């Protein structure tokens, strides 16, 4: 055995079985339990130093808050420890392939983060004089140009703050257009059964009734059913393309044609634009409105649940109804129009304060410029290639929901292959955690039994794809071999085991309260 210069061995000797080992303090090596901020005891502590104010608040009399607020503070080193320890309990794209179908968990380039933090963008107030923000408006204008060119659409509303917010914006444009044309009686929206939940939710939100369009055996919109349900009271169809089964709607041009013939608009859910960017323009398919999740196709970070951004591209027919503010080229440069100034604009209103998710615009534009027209086309191709590769490899043990023909950017499996094993889709997904991967999207779309929707994205190497496929194939074989406990008790190796969601919903504890600590101790 090698020895270092003080005589200690440099390689481990024989050790007992490590898997049964527990620590004396409850942690697991570097992975420590971390109390809540409120249990760390900093009720009279702060990690920020301020000068003393020159004036008091005597002018405010009894408007001043005298009762305790109840917010503890920490010094800077304690703050770093607390949040770094918490961060280590999260899975992340930077750790491994994150196969959430429909969510497009791709690499988030750090150049984007750097540029969004440049003072010329980050330290700009939304209401400072327009003449002092020409560069920001120019960036928005360039982003708009790229979005319009890539989608083949003539207009874009930049302000929606997320995908669902974009859907709402698109449907409000459609509603306003119908009302302006004396078609306000159109109150029905047709949505395929495989749609994202946000589609029917948004339609219902603007006061429309929702009717489902049937799906064909090969996972597409049933054109005959659509035609049968169209009528003089239909305001719009909402179709995702590529759809949530990961398939391109082959009849999409015909779908648009019959919708238009029936006087309805075609809203396209652009959540899956990543599959076709640079190769197909939604404008060529007859789309009237489509939101683009900048946090999916254009790589802005998901951030543990937002912020996103959901600009909406619009056809000529819908463009006049776009929300305020919008950009115009004026005599003195770019301007923001806050209220309709002429007859041509029939804006339906406003989606949010100010002008949208500028921080996300900078990131998305940096990403587009980095890829360019050639790189973005390669994005779609590699995303589709990776998904088809996974579909081909995993088909050795798992059953694809639509085995015939290629898929687009995501591969959909059903749970047929788990029949009789005693393992469910959920169990299988939780066992993936023990192998170091985030579960795929489960039980969605609703049209496939026990659905497992896998979207690798284009930013995975073949090596990582193989590592992922090897893990899933090994798990699949274990399930079929009767190693049921590996699944039903999973995860074993995560920071926590399965959580009791029923308990959480039955008696919601949504905030920490001082009495909380004692009840926990009593339990």
């Amino acid at each position, binding site marked *: 055995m090698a020895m270092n210069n003080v005589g200690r061995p440099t390689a481990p000797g024989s050790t007992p079985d490590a898997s049964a080992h527990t620590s004396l303090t409850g942690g697991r090596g570097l992975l420590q339990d971390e109390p809540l901020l409120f249990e760390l005891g900093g009720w009279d502590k702060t990690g920020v130093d301020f000068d003393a104010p020159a004036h008091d608040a005597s002018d405010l009399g009894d408007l001043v808050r005298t009762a305790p607020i109840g917010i503890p503070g*920490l010094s800077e080193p304690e703050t770093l420890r607390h949040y770094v320890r918490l961060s280590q309990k*999260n899975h992340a794209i930077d750790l491994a392939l994150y196969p959430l179908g429909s969510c497009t968990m791709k690499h988030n380039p750090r150049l984007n983060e750097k540029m969004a933090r440049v003072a010329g963008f980050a330290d700009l107030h939304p209401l400072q004089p327009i003449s002092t923000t020409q560069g920001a408006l120019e960036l928005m204008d360039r982003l708009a140009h790229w979005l319009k060119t890539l989608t083949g659409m003539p207009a874009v509303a930049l302000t929606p703050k997320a995908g669902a917010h974009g859907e709402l914006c698109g449907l409000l444009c459609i509603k306003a257009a119908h009302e302006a044309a004396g078609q306000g009686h159109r109150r029905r929206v047709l949505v395929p059964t495989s749609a994202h939940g946000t589609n029917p939710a948004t339609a219902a939100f603007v006061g429309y009734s929702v009717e489902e369009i049937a799906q064909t055996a090969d996972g597409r919109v049933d054109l005959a059913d659509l035609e049968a349900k169209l009528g003089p009271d239909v305001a719009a169809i909402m179709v995702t393309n590529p759809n949530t089964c990961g398939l391109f709607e082959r009849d999409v041009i015909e779908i648009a044609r019959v919708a238009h013939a029936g006087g309805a608009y075609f809203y396209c859910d652009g959540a899956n634009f990543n599959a076709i960017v640079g190769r197909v323009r939604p404008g060529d398919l007859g789309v009237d409105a489509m939101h683009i999740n900048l946090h999916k196709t254009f790589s802005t970070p998901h951030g543990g649940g937002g912020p996103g951004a959901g600009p909406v591209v619009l056809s000529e027919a819908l463009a006049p109804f776009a929300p305020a503010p919008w950009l115009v080229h004026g005599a003195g440069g770019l301007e923001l129009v806050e209220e309709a100034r002429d007859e041509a604009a029939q804006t339906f209103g406003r989606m949010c304060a100010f002008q949208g998710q500028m921080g996300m615009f900078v990131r998305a534009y940096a990403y587009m410029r980095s890829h360019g027209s050639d790189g973005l086309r390669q994005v779609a191709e590699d995303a589709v290639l990776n998904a088809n590769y996974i579909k081909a490899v995993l088909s050795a043990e798992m059953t694809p929901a639509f085995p015939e023909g290629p898929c687009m950017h995501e591969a959909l499996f059903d749970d047929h292959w788990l029949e009789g094993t005693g393992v469910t889709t959920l169990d299988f997904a939780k066992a993936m955690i023990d192998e170091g991967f985030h579960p795929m999207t489960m039980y969605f779309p609703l049209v496939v039994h026990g659905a497992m929707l896998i979207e690798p994205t284009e930013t995975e190497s073949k090596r990582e794809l193989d590592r992922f496929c090897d893990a899933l194939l090994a798990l699949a074989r274990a399930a079929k071999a009767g190693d049921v406990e590996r699944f039903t008790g999973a995860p074993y190796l995560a920071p926590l085991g399965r959580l009791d969601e029923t308990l959480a919903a039955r008696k919601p504890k949504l905030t920490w309260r001082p009495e909380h600590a004692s009840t926990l101790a009593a339990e």
Partner: protein
Amino acid sequence: MRYLPLTPDDRAQMLGVIGAPDIDALFADVPVAARKKDLFDLPKRAGELEVERELGQLAAMNRPAGAGPFFCGAGAYRHHVPASVDHLIQRSEFLTSYTPYQPEIAQGTLQVLFEFQTQVAALTGMDVANASMYDGSTATAEAVMMSQRVTRREKAILSGGLHPHYAAVTQTIAHAEGMEIVRQKAAIDAEADVIAAIDSSVACVVVQTPNVFGVVTDVTRIAEAAHAAGALLIVVTTEAVSFGLLKSPGEMGADIAVAEGQSIGNALNYGGPYVGLFACREKLVRQMPGRLCGETVDAQGRRGYVLTLSTREQHIRREKATSNICTNSGLCALAFTIHLSLLGEVGLRQMAALNHSRARELVAALSGVCEVLTPRFFNEIAVRVANASAVVEALLQDGIVAGVPYSRLAPEAGLDDVLLLAVTETTTSEDIAALSAALKGRLG
């Protein structure tokens, strides 16, 4: 291309495994008419250096708020954010993770959300808070729609002190959902005017404090009037630092408190992304919009957190969902929570006191220069100057960004002589002296 790991060999090998002759075969379902053979008319790929150069040039065309004396507020405020906040939110595990639907491997995000909810409830003086909204304006619209679900009434009264963008967003969204929105005429100190409009058909009244003109209002009487008529009181705050000095919405009888949380932890970002705060009384929690994080236990009885009550949400509930929000503003909420953890009650109170003190200094400096219209203020005031837009343009020549003309927010309101001026702990005495001198010079 630096973001694409596949090599030409990989691609060829993978096509072989798939059994496809070429990449076009995988796009066979696309109608021939829609297949683009050529590259789009856009620039080709660019290296990091080149992209950085182009964006740097665009950024250089802007004047950052920190470049000189700066007095813009009106819903977005320039505060100092400690360096560790931005460092922490760029941790890969926070930045590059998804919504925490798999709680076993998302306890970091979930515990932060639980801390965030607790902080927001404490700040606003309410019982419960959600895991954030897009921003203050959309939170306001959602609060109005929530009042409809709670009261089963259709009418909302918006006070004349509500930020015009907030009012417009509420009008757009709540109206789409079928509500009647009554916007009172813009008025500097008239929050109590909403009392006269309250009757038994009203679902809610929406009052902002400090309002868009900077006026601080004790809304207790409004709360009493609303409750007597069976309506809810929604209190809006656009400057979250004010919670460190002013009586909270909860103490004054609010049923729902919404706020823009940008001031804590988040940069100005030219208007977004920001973080909406949403808090309410416990009994209303099941009508609340947005994501909620709740405490529970895992299979071994260990404490943990999950997203809960999701049967209200659209990805589950589809057309029966209670709100339009799906994504929240996770990373901005994280920044908020970290900054507030650094501040603590002690630091927040000091920060708020310093902001208020600066505003007192501003008011004193403007004495004899122009009329101050705001009788009770936190860190923002309205002043009267003829043609406020022209004054702002003129002072720009002096290197000063002299606030927000009210007409920028509401061009048709007829308040062209109202200028909104905000100060924070980042404003220096020299900045205030420069503004005062320049205004004096320009106004003659």
